[in-house]
């Protein structure tokens, strides 16, 4: 064996492990971690230059456990999945050590290689590991491609933001209309601003889009109307809500602004 340090570097991503074998065969973890127990296993198999279809389970298990111990000694948290695999390997190893059941000796078909399931899993995993590499390369290429930024158009600005003055205009309309209505000023419980805000938030949550005219018209007293107006200003200022006017001089709506959420539609 060479005196020089053998280095196995996964060079497509800095975060993957670099394990260097010192002259005295001591495994030294340099940096990073494997993406999972299967990743580590594949590495060990390659390092052993073993045939994946005839894995030397005892040696591989030893290497695997050494790595786990190393992680622990370096105070790296070992994910549960790594331990599950360790247990699996030990189990396979012991099954391989057991003598075959002489009663079943005649039927070679029935004897299942205890490694089979693991090998199948490793092969399947390796396909996706390669696919991940492919995706990485593709994204690197894509990062070298640029397109021009969005040009502001009516379509991507379809809803012209209503200004406070537009809002005042709507409000004024209602106050005037209100004056003409005959309302019995019955002593009623004052709706506080915080209650109004709460009620408004609930309305928006339920209806997504709320026509302000409709909302203001529901107010019974002048005081409520003013409270409602302030509530609208407050909710626009602080919450995920925006004022929207689809047409110039059109109705103003309060619209819920979606927080970043997964899209419902896919490609």
């Amino acid at each position, binding site marked *: 064996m060479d005196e020089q340090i053998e280095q196995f570097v996964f060079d497509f991503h800095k975060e993957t492990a670099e394990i260097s074998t010192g002259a005295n065969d001591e495994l030294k973890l340099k940096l990073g971690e494997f*993406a999972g127990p299967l990743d580590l296993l594949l590495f060990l198999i390659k390092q052993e230059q073993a045939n994946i279809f005839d894995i030397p389970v005892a040696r591989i298990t030893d290497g695997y456990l050494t790595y786990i111990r190393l992680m622990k000694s370096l105070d790296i948290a070992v994910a549960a999945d790594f331990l599950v695999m360790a247990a699996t390997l030990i189990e396979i190893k012991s099954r391989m050590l057991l003598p075959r059941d002489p009663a079943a000796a005649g039927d070679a078909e029935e004897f299942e290689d205890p490694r089979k399931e693991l090998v199948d899993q490793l092969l399947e995993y390796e396909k996706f590991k390669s696919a991940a590499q492919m*995706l990485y390369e593709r994204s690197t290429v894509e990062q070298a*491609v640029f*397109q*021009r930024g969005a040009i502001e158009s009516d379509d991507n600005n379809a809803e012209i933001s209503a200004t406070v003055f537009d809002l005042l205009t709507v409000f004024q309309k209602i106050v005037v209309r209100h004056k003409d209505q005959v309302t019995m000023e019955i002593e009623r419980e004052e709706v506080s601003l915080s209650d109004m805000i709460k009620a408004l938030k609930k309305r928006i949550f339920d209806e997504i889009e709320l026509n302000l005219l409709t909302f203001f018209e529901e107010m019974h007293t002048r005081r409520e109307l003013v409270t409602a107006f302030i509530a609208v200003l407050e909710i626009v200022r602080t919450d995920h809500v925006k004022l929207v006017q689809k047409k110039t001089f059109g109705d103003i709506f309060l619209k819920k602004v979606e927080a970043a959420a997964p899209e419902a539609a896919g490609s």
Partner: protein
Amino acid sequence: MTEPEIEQTETVQSLEPEVDRADAPARSAAEVMSIAEAIIFVSDEPITSKTIGEIIGEDKETVQAAVEELQKEYEERGGGLQIREIAGGWQIATRTEYHEEIRKFLKTRPSAKLSLASLETLAVIAYKQPVTVPEILEIRGVQSASAIKTLLEKRLIVTKGHKETVGRPMQYGTSKDFLIQFGLKDLTDLPSIEDFEDLVQAA
């Protein structure tokens, strides 16, 4: 005689054919090419031949042929730009050769790369969609919860309903943003997963 110009402030709420070309002279192929080029340039998302056709009043085959011809011209010219098909539509973009100079100009860095775990998870989802978390676990042999969270945040994957089995687990699939970020026309643009099997045997 001529209709008054449509004011810019009126918004187009749906994409309806705006032009009635019944009485207008037919356009030449070159004209269609130029118009399509202008529209593709302005569009901030990849745009289909069908959509372009609807806007300008041509059928999508005409537009498709025109854009393909345009694409050839761009190639022959060998300039700084290319026309390509991505995420199901056409797009004008810069050629990869000039990314360094462009970065100098834009003063941006390449965005953070995905971790190996995220890339693997993404690969599984891309090829096996719709796929559930346990199914991903089976292939990767490791929990993918944080990778999935990252991928959802980056809008590379989306939920695609529930699997009708015990527990009705959530299913995931890739999004349009995935196609765009990885330069794919559509999912069939991905190399077959079996191609990777050959690499495995050779190793």
